[in-house]
């Protein structure tokens, strides 16, 4: 059953249309950065010619003098942000994840992570769900890229509300942060009352003596919950939302996997180096367990609707259900 402490929206198992609210996580970023900007005048936002679609526009309207248009130049954007953070501003720099941190990885490594300045990399349109744009724009390696970097906090919010909270929290970390957001409208599972703390994973669903742990990140957390619900009378599961992939909440995760037969990770990212990799690294050392990885299986995507792509690449609810069942046989 849903964990009452998570204070999730009450209608999250209703059909998507007419039931649970839908909003893209980038909207949560737009709201959050505006909130952060109101709370702290050091907050500035940089955009690489994608001001409307990254929702940086909302900040720009309110704080035109703290908004900086960088043009199509992500390497310069990252390093200008590094300089501004070095000075003492709190720069959120925004583009599509395929370009930032895709194109400017070394600049982020040297001038932000090693330099250890408080700049926030905001990668939008992550995952296959960017859809028709095709493989070039479907960023599926960003978590791996950023997770490998010392000093970097890595956050992948599950919905627009969590994205808002994460953005507000990112403004107060004092260290480098990467956040990824999606383009598509996805279910808003969490509520204003849902606890959120960077580095603290949330148990969203817990059955009696769970047999399988489903550990998910990003909007696919909703799929994980739908799978748990569908399996409710058949296999007891526990679902954990790992919004902060680094630093990983080892305590919550190790508690959640106590006594299970297997662990399934779910993410809209390559199965190498992302959430699944992080969990495998932890469990291999602290509690080795059989694992399965739902995500992109070491391949690039293609054009299509988000639903078509998610199903085609085996990342949908039915895939999660099938994998969970394989452990309970």
């Amino acid at each position, binding site marked *: 059953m849903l964990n009452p402490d998570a204070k999730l929206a009450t209608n999250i198992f209703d059909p998507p249309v007419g039931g649970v609210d839908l909003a893209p996580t980038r909207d949560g970023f737009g709201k959050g950065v505006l909130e952060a900007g109101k709370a702290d005048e050091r907050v500035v936002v940089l955009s690489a010619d994608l001001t409307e679609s990254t929702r940086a526009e909302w900040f720009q309207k309110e704080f035109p003098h703290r908004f900086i248009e960088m*043009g199509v130049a992500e390497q310069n954007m990252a390093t200008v942000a590094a300089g501004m953070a*070095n000075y003492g501003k709190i720069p959120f720099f925004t583009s599509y994840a395929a370009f930032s941190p895709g194109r400017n990885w070394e600049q982020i490594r040297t*001038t932000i992570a090693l330099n250890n300045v408080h700049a926030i990399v905001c990668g939008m349109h992550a995952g296959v769900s960017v859809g028709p744009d095709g493989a070039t724009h479907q960023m599926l390696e960003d978590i791996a890229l950023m997770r490998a970097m010392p000093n970097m906090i890595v956050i992948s919010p599950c919905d627009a509300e969590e994205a808002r909270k994460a953005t507000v929290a990112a403004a107060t970390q004092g260290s480098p942060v990467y956040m990824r957001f999606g383009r598509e409208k996805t279910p808003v599972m969490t509520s204003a009352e849902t606890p959120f703390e960077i580095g603290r994973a949330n148990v969203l669903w817990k059955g009696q003596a769970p047999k399988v742990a489903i550990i998910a990140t990003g909007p696919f957390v909703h799929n994980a919950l739908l799978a748990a619900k569908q399996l409710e009378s058949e296999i007891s599961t526990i679902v954990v939302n790992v919004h902060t992939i680094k630093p990983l909440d080892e305590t919550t995760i190790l508690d959640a996997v106590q006594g299970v037969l297997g662990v399934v990770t779910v993410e809209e990212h390559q199965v190498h180096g992302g959430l699944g990799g992080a969990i495998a690294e932890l469990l291999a050392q602290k509690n080795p367990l059989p694992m399965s990885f739902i995500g992109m299986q070491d391949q690039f995507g293609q054009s299509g609707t988000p639903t078509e792509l998610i199903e085609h690449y085996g990342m949908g609810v039915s895939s999660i259900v099938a994998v969970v069942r394989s452990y309970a046989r």
Partner: protein
Amino acid sequence: MPLSDGETRELHERAQTVRATILEMLVAAGSGHTAGPLGMADIFTALYFHVLTHDPKNPAWAERDRLFLSNGHITPVRYAAMAHAGYFPIEECLTLRKFGSRLQGHPEREKLPGVESTSGPLGSGLSQASGYAYAARMDGKKFRVYCAMSDGEHQEGNIWEAMMFAGKNRLSNLTGIIDRNNIQIDGMTESIMPLEPLREKYESFNWHVLEVDGHNIPQFIAACEEAKAIYEKPTVIIAHTIPGKGVKEIEFDYRWHGKPPSKEEAVKFLNELRTLGGKVSSEHQ
């Protein structure tokens, strides 16, 4: 106010001691870059002993001028100039590139107070300096931001992005300094990947451009002063330098870009520096 002859002579003499320290630290390290640091010794001496508003005893002083070093590999010249200026004991220079040293092979902000930014991978210093200058101007700060760059790193696209940004935003509190020594690891810049006409390129990006003899300290200082008077644009000083300046055997030779002298070579080179090429006798002879 122009430098007096005495001041000029004093700065040039100091630059020679900075060069000697560079050679000593490179020999002790057993690796590192020789040509660039020697070539920029006059300019870094001018910066630390005349141009910069700074306080070696208080490296975090909020009103200090900021000096970004984009081509981090010439950091021995910065370390040597900083040590002579009083940031840390000159003996510490001999820890360059050693385990546990604050003097990393390429400079790191968090390791050594007074190093404004971590650098080494080429082409990203001007962006950082531009971001810093932009942020400082937002808050009406009066200090200046300087960014020393190599010529070869202008082959990196990131620099041109930064040039566009600084030109667009008229960052007049920013002065770029280019070590135009015409060499890079694989050979001469103009045969590896031509940069000319560099002056016109900067001008077309809306920069004010000055060209100086990088070994003429009064000329360089005058250019820094002129840059302060330009209110509409960022300024770049293209400093024509001789790589390896001060040691005849190294001068102009690109093969000295990335290697240190041996102990024997260093003895010979130090003698050359201390005798001003045999013009005076050295107490070390």
